[in-house]
């Protein structure tokens, strides 16, 4: 049975390899045939494996491929428990749905086959990441998803902005990976193994002294991959990639790798107070900043990108509060409704002929009713309106934070504010695209083709119903993750009336946000009542420029380093090092010119010099002590 884990990994890998090798000779139809069937097979195997471990009460499966190093023993191994099972099913299902969408979105693209090659390669890398049995294999997957993300972001590399965005994502991820790598080294140094289970068992007995530092370095990796403050600015730029790829990579799966990793290491993480506080505070900061930034973006995809960052912030809040189940729950629901929103945006972009400015849309409700309805579901879901998926998970996060008490009340209040902002910007997003009076003629816009709307409908259904896997009345996901979080102290929901009040408050926040969006952008309440808000323009600009964080970062890290390195290049390199080397060379040239007169070219004078100096040497030899008695 364990060998099937390898099968799950190999299907997308071999598909990618096949497309790489034979891609030149394949047309779109053949590519579709290969990639969709492979995905279907992958989904089937994933569900089969998940069913198997479900029947076995989520007893983990371990599969050792080969031994890599003997001492300290490192095995190339895979590990399948509830957590990786959920991720595996999520990834394979979403990849199938999104590939179905892509066949229509990407058709007539020159690099059609190449897109699916990269796509399958990404699926392989992501599965390697989630199915890894130790930190080193996880690091492999971690780096490979970074690579495939880079390839897909700069997919249209002839566009300069796309290749630049790819570089940015790669470099910012590198900063995180650097931290992750140092964390791994510290782990190996202390535990002398990479295997998850032995590390977790070890931590129960003895805790390393530098546990906090270890956790903080691993956190840096998670923050880079999951686009948290301060390493978040690559994600909005990553929207240069094809929209379906954004949906899978930069919304549903890859960016949640950090969340997955933190839940995976939760048996260690729970002992680090500093780590948890860092996670929750930076997660909250990210959620607020990016929600604020999302309020005034023009680009249809950038709103969703900032929204993704914000939702990832919610997941980090949950982890920081010790609500690991809630984090994974939100990860799952978010994956579905964010994929839905991205694919909907993709459909809109496709029909609008690659126009991405939401102010140039409007009124698309009538032209694209299915897309509008499905994106509406997504918007309601993300805003936390019951009984859609987002409500259950977000409410669980908020309630868990609240139940910790103390300083966490403050965190809860700020999270609630972020939730309100979420509803507001998502409402604005949907209303501006679909409801607002169109500013220009949109005659050529039609409903998206069936291959696009069908995945949307499927994802819409998921967005409605996926929330029921873990409600306060049915703790499904908790049971799935029970084995994974066996020794972990998980924050539980408050009971009874408190929970009801909290739920009511979060629903209220959702509705308030949506209502505010309607009042401001459709009803235009400001001009109706002739209210003048001071500093509105500055406020808008602040939101659009993301609190100038990008510019500040640019000023410090790019311009500062550039001028510093230029100064170093001129003074240190140019004058000192080059000067020294050139000086040596010149002095040799000069002195050799002055000595060269002694080279007469006459053999006989050389002979004489030779003899003279030989005799001198004999004299020296004779006069040295001990030669003549």
């Amino acid at each position, binding site marked *: 049975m364990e060998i099937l884990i390898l099968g799950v990994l190999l299907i997308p890998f071999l598909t990618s390899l096949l497309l790489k090798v034979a891609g030149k000779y394949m047309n779109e139809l053949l590519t579709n045939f290969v990639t969709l069937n492979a995905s279907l097979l992958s989904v089937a195997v994933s569900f089969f494996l998940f069913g198997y471990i479900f029947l076995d009460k989520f007893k983990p499966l371990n599969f050792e491929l080969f031994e890599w190093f003997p001492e300290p023993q490192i095995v190339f191994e895979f590990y399948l428990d509830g957590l990786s099972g959920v991720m595996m099913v999520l990834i394979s299902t979403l990849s199938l749905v999104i590939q179905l969408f892509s066949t229509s979105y990407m058709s007539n693209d020159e690099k059609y086959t190449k897109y699916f090659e990269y796509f399958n390669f990404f699926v392989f890398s992501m599965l390697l990441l989630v199915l890894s049995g130790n930190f080193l294999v996880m690091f492999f997957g971690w780096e490979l998803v970074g690579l495939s993300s880079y390839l897909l972001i700069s997919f249209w590399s002839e566009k300069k902005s796309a290749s630049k965005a790819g570089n940015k994502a790669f470099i910012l991820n590198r900063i995180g990976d650097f931290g992750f790598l140092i964390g791994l080294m510290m782990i190996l140094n202390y535990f002398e193994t990479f295997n998850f289970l032995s590390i977790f068992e070890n931590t129960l007995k003895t805790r390393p002294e530098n546990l906090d530092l270890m956790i903080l370095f691993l956190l840096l990796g998670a923050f880079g991959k999951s686009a948290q403050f301060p390493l978040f600015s690559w994600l909005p730029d990553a929207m240069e990639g094809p929209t379906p790829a954004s949906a899978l990579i930069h919304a549903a799966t890859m960016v949640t790798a950090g969340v997955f990793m933190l839940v995976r290491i939760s048996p260690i993480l729970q002992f680090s107070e500093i780590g948890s506080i860092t996670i929750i505070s930076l997660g909250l900061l990210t959620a607020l900043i990016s929600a604020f930034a999302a309020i005034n973006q023009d680009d249809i995809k950038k709103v969703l990108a900032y929204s993704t960052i914000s939702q990832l912030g919610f997941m980090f809040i949950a982890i920081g509060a010790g609500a690991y189940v809630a984090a994974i729950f939100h990860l799952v629901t978010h994956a579905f409704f964010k994929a839905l929103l991205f694919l909907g945006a993709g459909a809109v972009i496709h029909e609008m002929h690659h126009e991405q400015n939401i102010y140039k849309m409007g009124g698309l409700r009538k032209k694209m009713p299915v897309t509008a309805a499905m994106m509406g579901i997504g918007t309601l879901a993300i805003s936390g309106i019951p009984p859609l998926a987002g409500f259950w998970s977000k409410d669980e996060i908020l309630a868990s934070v609240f139940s910790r008490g103390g300083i966490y009340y403050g965190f809860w209040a700020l999270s609630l504010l972020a939730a309100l902002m979420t509803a507001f910007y998502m409402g604005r997003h949907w209303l501006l695209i679909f409801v607002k009076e169109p500013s220009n003629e949109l005659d050529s816009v039609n409903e998206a083709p069936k291959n696009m709307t069908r995945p949307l409908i499927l994802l819409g259904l998921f967005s409605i119903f996926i929330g029921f896997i873990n409600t306060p009345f049915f703790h499904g996901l908790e049971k799935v993750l029970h084995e994974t979080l066996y020794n972990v102290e998980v924050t539980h929901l408050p009971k009874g009336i408190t929970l009801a009040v909290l739920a009511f408050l979060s629903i209220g926040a959702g509705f308030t946000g949506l209502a505010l969006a309607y009042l401001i952008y459709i009803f235009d309440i400001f001009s109706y009542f002739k209210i003048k808000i001071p500093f509105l323009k500055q406020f808008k600009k602040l939101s659009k420029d993301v609190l100038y964080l990008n510019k500040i970062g640019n000023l410090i890290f790019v311009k500062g380093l550039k001028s510093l390195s230029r100064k170093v290049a001129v003074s240190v390199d140019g004058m000192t090092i080059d000067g020294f080397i050139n000086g040596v060379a010149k002095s040799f040239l000069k002195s050799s010119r002055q000595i060269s007169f002694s080279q*007469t070219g*006459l053999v*006989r*004078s050389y002979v*004489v*010099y030779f*003899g*003279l100096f030989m*005799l*001198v040497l*004999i*004299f020296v030899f*004779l006069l040295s002590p001990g030669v*003549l*008695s």
Partner: protein
Amino acid sequence: MTDLLLFAIPGLFIILGALIVIFAKNPVHNAMGLVLTLTSLAILYISLNATFVAMVQMLVYAGAVMTLFLFVIMMIGVDKPEQSKEEIKGQKLLISGTLILLVSVVVFIGLENGLNWNLLFPQSQNTFEGTPSLLASAMFTSWVFPFEVISILLIVATTAALALAYEFRKRENND
């Protein structure tokens, strides 16, 4: 007395031949002086118990090498007198300086030791005759690696001489 004669007569001939080599004007005379020196050396070798080396000296040096020398002399021509005037500036001064230095080294050593050589190692009691079989048994056992190397050198030299001659002929053809 025989020892002394066996050393003194060849020794005198050796020095005489060497002086002819460096002072005679006619190249043929130079070569003949060299032959005189080499032959006398062979006699000395015999008195030093190196009979086989003496034979080889006669055959290879006085025979083959000198024939080659004479061949070249005849080919170049003996009728071109060497310019006796010294052309290199300061050469005479340097030569005399070297000679003075050489003489002073000898005088210095002689005076330091009271005209007595003191060799570092004593005369060995072990005497032997340098027969071909003795030499061969040493040459092909402990000296076999240098022997192989030196044979490679000989082949390289032969090839080099061929290459020089070949290039030479080709140029002639082109003219």
